[in-house]
């Protein structure tokens, strides 16, 4: 090779490298768009709904094919609710988002305009096909006699709950504990004192709901586990008699809104199946599957049928505590909020190991 070529090659080779990168990115984009065969839907959901969606999908797919002749393939993706919201914002091509917290789904509008501002009005019943709540799981025979929220603050009770900073379940448990004080005539200061005691008596603050379940049921740490109703049933079932559920007198109404991700379905041209998919949840069949997995169906007729299973517990919406999730996030969970203050005082009372 002639000497004079060398600098030219030297300059060109990085360009080749970038070109190669660009080509491969472009090609992988093409192959993604050109799929033939069944229409693919991706459902981005939070952790405890894995089994629920598995059964809903199995029921919906053949029904949709019979009605429209379109073959469907539905993929599920499960992770923490906040992590899923970030994944969709960062480009996860999810046709529907069925997340745990309103604030996570709303971030799709607020941070990325991927859905409409009035997204909760796009589906029946404020886009809520089912609700849930936070219950207690205790050891067999309830040896510590835990019956209600106030029992959690007794000395010597160890509570397992994930961190409200990173877990939707953690946030709901925190709010449920808070509401159990303020909605029974207590002041905010009393509520703060109550949650401070609870977190002082929390030996492990797992990052997610499933981690907390492992800590409680497998490693046998703690006396009571605050968890979602459907998760509580799964946990008790799996323990084969070692654990049992306690229904407190009051708890929070968990509202996991669902939505079609407009930006994605426009691009993938999957609006029709995605909407049909979510509407299926409101049918009698969908609602029955929901009830079977211990989520609370929002159809009053189906709920009435299963009323005894749900103990007709008094549930309060988040709006009984604050105006909504945005305020809850700012007041309780953001940097310097109530939860951070609680930990400041926990760490002062109990020096680090």
């Amino acid at each position, binding site marked *: *090779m002639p000497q004079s070529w060398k600098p030219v090659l030297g*300059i060109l080779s990085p360009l080749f490298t970038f070109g190669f990168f660009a080509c491969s990115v472009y090609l992988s984009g093409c192959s993604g768009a050109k799929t033939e065969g069944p229409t693919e839907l991706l459902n981005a959901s939070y952790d405890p709904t894995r089994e629920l969606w598995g059964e809903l999908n199995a029921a919906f797919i053949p029904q949709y094919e019979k009605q429209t002749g379109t073959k469907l393939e539905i993929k599920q993706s499960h992770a923490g609710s906040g992590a899923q919201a970030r994944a969709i914002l960062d480009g996860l091509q999810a046709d529907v988002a069925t997340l745990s917290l309103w604030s996570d789904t709303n971030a799709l509008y607020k941070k990325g305009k991927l859905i409409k501002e009035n997204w909760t009005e796009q589906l029946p019943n404020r886009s809520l096909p089912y609700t849930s709540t936070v219950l207690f799981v205790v050891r067999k025979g309830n040896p510590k006699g835990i019956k209600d929220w106030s029992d959690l603050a007794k000395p010597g009770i160890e509570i397992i709950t994930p961190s409200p900073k990173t877990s939707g379940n953690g946030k709901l448990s925190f709010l449920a504990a808070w509401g159990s004080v303020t909605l029974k005539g207590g002041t905010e200061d009393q509520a703060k004192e109550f949650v401070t005691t609870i977190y002082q008596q929390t030996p*492990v603050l797992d990052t997610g709901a499933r981690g907390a379940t492992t800590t409680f049921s497998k490693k046998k740490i703690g006396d009571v586990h605050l968890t979602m109703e459907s998760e509580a049933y799964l946990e008790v079932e799996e323990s084969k008699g070692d654990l049992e559920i306690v229904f407190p007198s009051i708890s929070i109404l968990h509202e996991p809104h669902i939505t079609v991700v407009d930006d994605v379905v426009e691009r993938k041209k999957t609006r029709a199946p995605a909407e049909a998919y979510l509407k299926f949840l409101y049918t009698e069949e969908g609602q029955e599957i929901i009830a079977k997995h211990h989520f609370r169906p929002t159809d009053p007729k189906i709920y009435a049928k299963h009323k005894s299973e749900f103990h007709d517990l008094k549930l309060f919406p988040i709006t009984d505590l604050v105006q909504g999730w945005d305020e809850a996030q700012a007041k309780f969970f953001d940097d310097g909020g109530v939860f951070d203050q609680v930990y400041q005082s926990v760490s002062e009372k109990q020096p680090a190991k």
Partner: protein
Amino acid sequence: MSVNNRRILPGFGISLSFSVAYLMVLVLVPLMICVWKASTLSINEFWLTVSSRQARSAYWVSVSTSFAAALVDVCIGTLVAWVLVRYEFPGKKIMDSLVDLPFALPTAVAGLVYSSLYAHNGWLGQFLFPLGIDTSYNTLSMILVLSFIGLPFVVRALQPVLESFDSDVEEAAASLGANRAQIFTRVILPGLMPAIWTGFALTFARGLGEYGSIVFVANMKPFQTEIAPFLIVKQLEQFNYDKAAAIAVVMLFLSFSLLVIINYLEWRSRAHAR
């Protein structure tokens, strides 16, 4: 002196520019974006984010546990490398491959295994706990899992150096009247020091960035076992990409300056050994 022309093998220009290009794409650009993202904060906000009491305690937890784990690994790793190089015994090949296992194992798996082994009702924890050794959800459990993850770095850094040592030198020292301790501290150790520093630096840096295994063995309570990477996750959960990047930049700066210091020490001990 002209660099290009005196090489036996051609291709300096091409290979250098490819290296630079890949480093740009894979390392420099992501880091620059991280710094750029953090720079969207005002100076005041940046400072408040990275200097809060919680953040300071998290840096301390990260740095101190990684440091302790690196120390443990240097001691155990040197011993393992020594055994693997100097002695012949059945099962040596297997032991040699075992050393690499922490490289191949997903760290989350390591975290899970350690946390269930050392929990109060775990296989090992049930014997340790009555002795007053608490190995679950505290600093000790973090050091344990970090030293598991870091061990191969030390062993693999030391092995080639030990192999290159001639036992003649030790014999000469012995015949000149040096006792065993003197042979080790005056003859072997100085030659090993640069490799030990390398292993220490790699283990330390690995520990600073570790997240996957720590979430299983630490209780993640603020001011106790909360590590800096977890603070980043917390900020991401609040959709505060800029604040997450701010903490990342501080960690980057911390690791970088630590690596510079350690590289300097390595260079000095290398010069000293010559």
